[in-house]
């Protein structure tokens, strides 16, 4: 047998062992020469190739993760948006209330100023309700017995630069009272014209009309009366103190068979705009 043949035979029969030895030797040499340029260069190339695929996988997973996070974040953002919308609506409500409060404060300050201007002692009160049946026009105010209110006390208010007559206290509760307005046909007020001084009796024509009727004015007064002339309380045999504005002359009706005029007055107080009133306290019997 030739030497070559024996060598080849040896290699074939010990292929496994020789392969193992070869691979382990290569590995050992790589370990020994680790860090040297000869070994580092192939490692760098291998790293570049493998890390390229690592980058693709990591990038894909990050993209998927970010997508899911975005969806979740979108859901959270939507929830926060709805919450913010609710908060904004609430704050809008608060702002509206604040504006109203500011206006109320301003009005109350003005009322307080006016209250001190009235010579007669008075108790300011706010209108808290009205007759819902639209029959009597009764007004409910937020002051009552505990505040010093008593039945039949005159009630006035300030509008358009004038203190005008509202009515009288009808019923008194502990902390609220009802006021019978002058518009009511059962409420009679002794009155006179401010300029011409003619006297008469003012009575309401009903709350639907919002007009007053002045009766028993002498017929001769027709020539002296002018439209728009102010009518005030006369204070004669009356609950109401003298000099409180009631209304202005709107129309005159003179019937031949009657000895007095039937006059139509427009109240100085617009009852639909009534918010605050002053209840006049009797000086003698407070």
């Amino acid at each position, binding site marked *: 047998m030739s030497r070559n043949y024996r060598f080849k035979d040896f290699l074939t029969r010990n292929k*496994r062992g020789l392969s193992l030895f070869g691979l382990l030797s290569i590995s*050992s040499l*790589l*370990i*020994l020469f*680790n860090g040297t340029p000869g070994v580092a260069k192939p490692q760098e190339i291998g790293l570049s190739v493998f890390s390229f695929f690592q980058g693709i996988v990591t990038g894909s997973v990050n993209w998927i993760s970010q997508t899911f996070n975005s969806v979740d974040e979108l859901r959270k953002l939507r929830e926060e948006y709805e919450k913010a919308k609710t908060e904004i609506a609430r704050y809008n409500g608060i702002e509206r209330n604040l504006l109203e409060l500011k206006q109320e404060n301003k009005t109350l300050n003005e009322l307080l100023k006016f209250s001190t201007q009235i010579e007669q002692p008075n108790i300011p009160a706010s209108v808290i309700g009205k007759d819902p049946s639209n029959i009597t026009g009764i007004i409910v105010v937020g002051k009552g017995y505990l505040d010093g209110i008593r039945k039949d006390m005159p009630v006035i208010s300030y509008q358009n630069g004038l203190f005008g007559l509202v009515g009288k206290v009808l019923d008194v509760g502990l902390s609220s009272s009802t006021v019978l307005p002058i518009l009511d046909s059962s409420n009679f007020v002794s009155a006179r014209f401010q300029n011409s001084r003619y006297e008469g009796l003012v009575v309401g024509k009903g709350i639907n009309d919002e007009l007053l009727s002045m009766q028993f004015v002498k017929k001769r007064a027709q020539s002296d009366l002018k439209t728009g002339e102010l009518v005030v309380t006369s204070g004669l045999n009356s609950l109401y103190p003298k000099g409180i504005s009631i209304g202005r002359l709107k129309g005159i009706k003179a019937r031949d068979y009657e000895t007095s005029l039937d006059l139509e007055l427009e109240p100085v107080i617009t009852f639909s705009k009534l918010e605050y009133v002053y209840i006049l306290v009797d000086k003698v019997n407070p």
Partner: protein
Amino acid sequence: MKYFFIISILALMLLIQSTLLNFIPFFDKVKPDLALIFLIFVSTQFGSVFGMYTGFISGLIESFTSGFLGLHSFIKTLTGFVFGLGKGNVYYDPFFIPVIMAFFGTIFKAILRFVLFLIFNLKSNPFNEVFNSGLIFELLFNIIFAPLLFLFFNFVKKKMSGPGRTLDD
């Protein structure tokens, strides 16, 4: 074709190990050695020669990203050779044999690593570097993953083989 397929799966296992498993907080510090489990499977299926070559390539690829070129190839080459000796000599059941192989494979890898650290003076304290709590976790993960991966690899092998062919050819 066979070699290309096996190398591809090997690279895939290493890719999963080095990228996807990082996204799972559970595998934050210690990961299962999927490439080792695959190597053991390949070696036991195709023999020592195939096992050692597969191990060598696996070790090289692993070294590209973990450093110490040659270290992993040495370990994996020897592991592939040793487990390849079992081809035809061991009955492979779907659960216990993969678990036992994964166990001994991990221990064998750890011992080899320790010896190489010592011989080539690669670490100042090779014993603590190798035999620590991380080894216990890696052992646990490998044992858990081994039956599942063996099942998967067997399935893939059967699919690749097809009727009338074997991957051994």
